[in-house]
């Protein structure tokens, strides 16, 4: 089974203090740590598990500048065979739709049975790119996949719905799945592991390699544009309980008694 995985390098903002930069259209990324998008780490792990079980190859693709090599190498260290980086000044400003177009054109050049992407990216959270790629390639898709089994020329897939419910669907190969977090346990990559793949070639493709015109990508090939960023309005906010741990604990205990939780 030949698998293609689309990945993205993103800034880690979960525990970071996020502020808006001078342009007003981006966050200030200085001082932020970048890593493989969390959803994508599950997608690449799932691809490697399938390869270990069924054989075949795993090719990992990312659109981005040279910095993205770091995430591509992480995937190579996890067990991917080949890495491709899609890069061109004309790609700047691409929205989810334009990004999908670029990825789809790159994928057309490679034989595949299955394409995996993360369900969404931590930064822009479109949740759109994977399925748009599937539609452009004319293959079936399933999103939010948290379990999959290969059955000859088809897949048995669980999709995560709301409220703890799952939906089981059968889908013909070739297909594209967007992977939900928690489907597996992404393997740890050591510094030694990264060093081993440090010299591995990462192919790069630009607009002309992909038979795309510059007006089809970037802002001119996009459907939506980000006008400005602003911080979300803050609600009334919590009453802060302050003091030494013992004093705070006593206040919490009183609240618990008062609000009827304790019997």
């Amino acid at each position, binding site marked *: 089974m030949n698998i293609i995985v689309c990945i993205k390098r993103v800034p880690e*903002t979960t525990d970071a203090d996020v502020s808006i930069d001078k342009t007003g259209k981006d966050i200030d990324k200085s001082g932020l740590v970048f890593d493989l998008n969390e959803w994508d780490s599950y997608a690449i792990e799932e691809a490697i598990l399938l390869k270990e079980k069924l054989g075949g190859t795993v090719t990992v693709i990312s659109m981005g500048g040279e910095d993205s090599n770091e995430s591509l190498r992480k995937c190579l260290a996890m067990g991917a065979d080949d890495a491709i980086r899609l890069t061109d000044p004309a790609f700047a400003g691409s929205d989810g739709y334009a990004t999908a177009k670029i990825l789809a054109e790159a994928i057309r050049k490679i034989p595949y049975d299955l394409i995996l992407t993360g369900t969404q990216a931590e930064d822009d959270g479109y949740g*759109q790119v994977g399925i748009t790629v599937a539609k452009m390639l004319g293959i079936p898709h399933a999103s939010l996949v948290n379990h999959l089994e290969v059955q000859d020329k088809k897949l048995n897939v669980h999709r995560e719905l709301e409220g703890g419910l799952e939906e089981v*669907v059968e889908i013909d190969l070739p297909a594209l799945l967007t992977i939900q977090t928690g489907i597996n346990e992404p393997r740890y990559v050591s510094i030694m592991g990264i060093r081993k793949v440090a010299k591995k070639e990462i192919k790069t493709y630009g607009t002309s390699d992909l038979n795309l015109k510059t007006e089809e990508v970037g802002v001119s090939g996009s459907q939506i544009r*980000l006008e400005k960023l602003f911080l979300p309005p803050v609600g009334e906010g919590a009453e802060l309980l302050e003091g030494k741990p013992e004093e705070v604990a006593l206040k*919490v205990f009183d609240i618990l008694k008062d609000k009827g*939780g304790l019997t």
Partner: protein
Amino acid sequence: MKEIIVLAEHRRGELRDVTWEMLSKGRQLSESLGAEINVALLGKGVNHLAEALKPKTNRVLLVEDERLEAFNSVTYEKVLTQLITERKPFLTLIAHTAMGMDLAPGLATHLKMPLATDCIGIDLEGETVSLTRQLYGGKVNAAVSFLKTGPYIVTIRSGAFPVLEKGPLAGEIVPLPSPLTAEGLAKRFLQYVEAAAGEVDITQADILVSVGRGIKEAENIPIVKELADALGGALACSRPVVDKKWLPKGCQVGTSGKTVKPKVYIAIGISGAFQHVAGMKGAGTIIAINKDPKAPIFSVAQYGIVADLFKIVPVLKEKVKELRKS
């Protein structure tokens, strides 16, 4: 007549709340646009849903077909392609849910229509659409515009729009023919399965002690479990804890887990992503412990403790034990 179409989301015979939220917002937009607010209802044996939708719409565009009994992006896409191509609604609203996420990107691409996903705000000025989305897990909001002309498809976040009370509309049920045929589908719905239930039903507890990513390691889970035990409450968690297999799925509070309404909810090391908040905002009292004073959980909680959970939680446990004895 111009129209806005809302795609009704329903599962196992029930309309999902986000449908009413989309209709409420859609009606407001339709008034400013001088358009009809219509709902597309796809399914089999869904007349009772059509009746329920009538007072909120001008028309219920009803497509019934046995192949529409459960959601499938392939069949939904075919039906909606016909519907949208014929009616050319200015705006089609779809929920950004497991259903809409599977459907909208493919549908928009197929119809060559501009799509904006997971929107929490939509404003109209004439026919110019301004959208609000969230980036970086809700840490930043973005004002977004369309670069192409309409018609448009917009997907809406659950819980982002309130259901406003407005006078009933005289909705008319309009049955439409189904374009589906007996041809085989590349994706086939088989069945629903429930996630395995946990040992403890967290929806029944008066006190929930809920733990998030801030607990850092599986080995630290007992710290919060002991507090839950001391309080006679149950242990719950946010999504990352389940993703990392530190606690079973049955403990998960949030959109993809359980919705809980305990008397008191203590959120420990939980940042407060909207998916989590959606599952616990109905709690009587919310107390949050987090070391990041900017964590969104403090906007939802009534009481907040800005502190290192490893310093405060063990002290709290001892205090509770001591005071409950006396």
